[in-house]
């Protein structure tokens, strides 16, 4: 299959179109089947991926607007491959665990469209195609929050849409300017990211371009102080919306840093290490403290998401393979773990129609299976070794230590304050006596919920004990990226800061 990537991108979209004629009663089964096929395709992509090759694979290139160098240009490398697989996985598991009955058909169609845009973003190698998928992803999510959300859903969804849209418009300006620069230097138009990579820009241009892209990515991540749309979005979104949002959509921002900012503007990236590190560290500590103050279980997870995204951004700017590979691995692990945590909150919300921790207490004795799975995800979230959460967090902190010891100590407090809010959430909800009568007859996880959660538990432990199948291809591409950046960098500071790993040096 030469055009496996096109199939991956458009299969869910075509299936979604066909979904309009599917009977309402079988919509759910239809959606799950499509998502399963999609996941199998993604796994097939992984299986046929050549781990030894650090470059782009399964490349497809079809000219769209040849005069302006806009191409339908797709490809994956070790950095994007696993995000694609995760997007397919989380969509499927989210659908399986979904408890929504209302307008189920519309929901399934929205999710399948969303899946197209998510996969499209991560495999696009043309800036315009990337931008199209990036913006298109807002639409189904806007609809999911706006149609199935809580009481403030309209406010939350519009805030989500406008805020991220504003950011991406600035990013678009950056992209257009980038293409203009490419044209003025080489005489031809191109929007191919790989063409842009070859462009060596003056440092002053790099900084402005970096900032333009930064606004788009930072709002998406969301980085402090652009994060306030997220708690609203999570607070109002239905479970499935939060799962996809936290697991995949936020990763677009951090992925953007790795795909665009680092290789396009290596000198600016190095110059920006400190400002970004400061923002990330504020983000890690500040949102973790805010998470502790929350009364609503879901808001704790929402703020914890922001805090963890701070760790991811920090790792991206460590400028060594340990940090960047760790940060990409953390994107995956955060996707799995926060996705699972949002599903778990959904479980109790379905039963009690409240997410306030004060309503609970002693749940461990009525819902032991639920408590066990929640406990495992909690431990993964606080980065316990041998769970998926440790690998990424450890590597990021280890990598960033090379940049700044004080920064690492401050960012490392996330392992302390992360434990504080998560353990107090667990204590308030699961421990203590069962005081609320409404909780006495709660049913433990049902088959559907177990089917969506148990695979995640398995992944959390599998990749915690043996991360190599995922980490090795990531690391391979990251090492190549760093070598490329180091060669392209002009300023001596950047040359010095970007660490090329020993194996790559030997290869040279």
């Amino acid at each position: 299959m030469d055009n496996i990537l096109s199939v991956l991108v458009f299969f869910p979209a075509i299936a979604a179109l066909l979904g309009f004629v599917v009977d309402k009663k079988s919509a759910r089964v239809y959606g799950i089947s499509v998502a399963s096929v999609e996941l199998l395709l993604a796994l097939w992509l992984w299986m046929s991926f050549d781990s030894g090759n650090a470059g782009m694979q399964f490349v497809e290139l079809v000219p769209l607007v040849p005069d302006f160098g806009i191409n339908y240009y797709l490809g994956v490398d070790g950095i994007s491959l696993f995000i694609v697989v995760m997007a397919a996985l989380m969509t499927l598991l989210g659908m399986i665990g979904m408890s929504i009955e209302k307008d189920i058909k519309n929901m399934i169609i929205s999710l399948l469209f969303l899946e197209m845009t998510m996969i499209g973003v991560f495999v696009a190698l043309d800036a315009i195609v990337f931008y199209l998928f990036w913006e298109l992803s807002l639409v189904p999510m806007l609809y999911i929050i706006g149609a199935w959300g809580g009481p403030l859903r309209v406010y939350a969804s519009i805030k989500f849409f406008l805020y991220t849209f504003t950011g991406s418009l600035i990013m678009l300006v950056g992209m257009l300017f980038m293409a203009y620069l490419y044209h003025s230097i080489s005489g031809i138009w191109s929007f191919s990211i790989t063409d842009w990579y070859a462009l060596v820009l003056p440092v002053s241009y790099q900084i402005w371009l970096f900032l333009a892209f930064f606004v788009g990515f930072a709002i998406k991540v969301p980085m402090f102080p652009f994060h306030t749309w997220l708690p609203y979005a999570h607070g109002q979104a239905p479970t499935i919306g939060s799962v996809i949002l936290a697991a995949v959509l936020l990763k677009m921002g951090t992925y953007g840093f790795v795909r665009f900012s680092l290789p396009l503007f290596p000198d600016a990236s190095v110059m920006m290490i400190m400002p970004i590190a400061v923002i990330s560290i504020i983000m890690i500590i500040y949102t973790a403290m805010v998470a502790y103050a929350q009364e609503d279980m879901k808001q704790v997870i929402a703020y914890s998401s922001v805090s963890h995204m701070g760790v991811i951004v920090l790792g991206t700017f460590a400028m060594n393979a340990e940090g960047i590979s760790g940060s990409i691995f953390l994107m995956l692990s955060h996707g799995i773990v926060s996705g699972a945590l949002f599903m778990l909150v959904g479980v109790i919300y379905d039963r009690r129609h409240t997410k306030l921790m004060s309503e609970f207490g002693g749940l461990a004795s009525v819902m032991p299976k639920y408590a066990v799975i929640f406990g495992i995800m909690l431990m993964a979230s606080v980065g316990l070794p041998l769970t998926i959460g440790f690998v990424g967090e450890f590597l990021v902190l280890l990598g960033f230590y090379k940049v700044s010891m004080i920064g690492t100590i401050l960012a490392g407090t996330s392992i302390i304050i992360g434990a504080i809010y998560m353990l107090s959430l667990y204590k308030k909800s699961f421990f203590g006596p069962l005081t609320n009568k409404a909780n006495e007859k709660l049913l433990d996880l049902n088959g559907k919920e177990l089917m969506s959660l148990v695979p995640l538990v398995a992944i959390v432990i599998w990749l915690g004990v043996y991360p190599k199948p995922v980490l090795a291809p990531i690391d391979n591409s990251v090492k190549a990226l760093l070598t490329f950046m180091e060669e392209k960098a002009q300023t001596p500071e950047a040359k010095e800061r970007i660490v090329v790993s020993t194996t790559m040096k030997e290869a040279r």
Partner: protein
Amino acid sequence: MEKFVYIALFAPLVSSLFAALFGMSPRKTFVGVIASLLLATSFLASAILAAFVYQTGGAIHVTMMEWIGAGDLMIPFGFIVDQVSVTMMTVVTLVSTVVHIYSIGYMDHDKSFNRFFSYLSAFVFSMMVLVMSDNFAGLFIGWEGVGVCSWLLIGFWYHKPDVSPEENPSISPSWAANEAFIVNRIADLGMLIGIFILYWNTGSLQYDVVFAAIPHLSHGILFAAAIALFIGAMGKSAQFPLHTWLTDAMEGPTPVSALIHAATMVTAGVFLVIRANPLYMVTPEVSYFIASLGTFVAFFAASMALVNRDLKRIIAFSTLSQLGYMFAAAGLGAYWIALFHLAAHAFFKALLFLGAGNVMHAMHDELDIFKMGGLKKSMKWTYIYMGVASLALAGIPPLAGFFSKDAIIETAFNEGTLILWIILVVTAGMTAFYSFRQVFLTFEGDERYKAFGIHPHEMYKFVLIAMSPLAILAVIAGFFQGTFHTFIIELLPNYEMSEHTHHYVLLLGAIVLAFAVGGIVLAWVMYGKGLKRNEKLENSFVYKLLKNQYYIPQFYAEFISKPYAMISTMMWKSVDMKIIDTTVDGIANLFYSGGDKTRKMQTGNLSSYLNWMGIGLFVLLFIAAISTVIG
């Protein structure tokens, strides 16, 4: 021999998973039996390995598979069985096996019997990973693993409600569990930083590579690494100021206190210092700090034990105090003596805790020793066990504690650190006093429990038999000091007393012994015949200070926990919701209201349109004029 390494390591994991299969089903005795058998298997394998290492003097090194590889970092799952790790393995599995068998009896009536064994075995597995790993990352796996198991086990009776600190200083099991986990996390950050320092300066986390690189590193780096790793050790081994969690951890079931919070996990910090001895040898100022802190904690904890009324908390304070002794020895460079005391302490302290468990069982979970007394009639064996353990703890010859503790005190003299020596000697007297205050108040004198309608009974026979190996070791372990010395110095640096110290050895021993015996006699005089409360003493400032643990828990609650919660809430409600979010909404509203106001331009009135056109033209001309001037 490799297969024994794997058996020793994985038998506890199998046991844990097996018990977990029945985690949600009602109590099944065979779960406890099989778990105990698997632990015994692990002990046997460890013993075989110990014999092998003893005979050959070599180490067994196995690398299972790669764990994390990124950039230039490569961390394998590698295990090393050498003199130090095999000592730890044998001690850990032996005490664990005893505690597992004990728990079959102790947890008899608990509905979560199976779950308990699952956690307990998982703990042993983590502990084995901790001591057997051949690199710092592997150590950290075990380090965090024991932390989680400790969290699970302290909070084992999670259904108990929170009460005020006046009623129960630990508030509730789940509160104590969280406290232990979070305090340990603070220390773990220090440890992680230590690991990072070593990695970026040596390029590896393998012990052998790191230690081989030490001579090439600058002193500043070594100093930072030594401090950072020791911060990690301070958390696990509950050294001041991270000590409060240990006494609160007594909320866990007593077998847990015996295994985790006395014999094994809390000694992990000491183990780390011993393991990293090449690092601490070259950082004498850090080592001296460790010794001083250890000595301080020995005294500090013992002082709080003097007045406490809670059976388990007294033993917890004594554990803290003995950990201080171990750090004192390790800090002074006598690593092998620290390890020897670690092992001896594991035996008699576990025995003491298990004895306390028997008392609790008999007293229906009453812990106040003021409400006990005269239990020797109904609990003869427990009295003997606890008496033996307390004699060992007090350092009465020829029991184990005499040899190991005396060696530490002698080291302090040998190093010429007289202040440390004096404090350690005084502490030895205090140790004897509080140990026997507890024993006498529990077993001797008038039967105060009768007022509460309790009918104590001795523990099951099989439990008492299971405890006997610990009792025997508490008595005889000291005789193996010489053998242990020759065995362990193949790996650890040798430490021997100077001629000068040898000259005074009898006198030194006699002084320590005098303090110990004096402590016991004083305890007998004060409490041997029953409880005579001294109102004046109990109302004195010092007594209250000690009783309230120097007001440190209150201080932490008032100046750390509460402000943290307050600032968090403030950040959420004032900063996040008000300042940041209002700014965002404000900017958005600016556009809304801007659009709303300019909307009025669209009046449909031709003359107003012409006016606007005029203004527009003027503005454009103005801009054009300016740009010509600038351009």
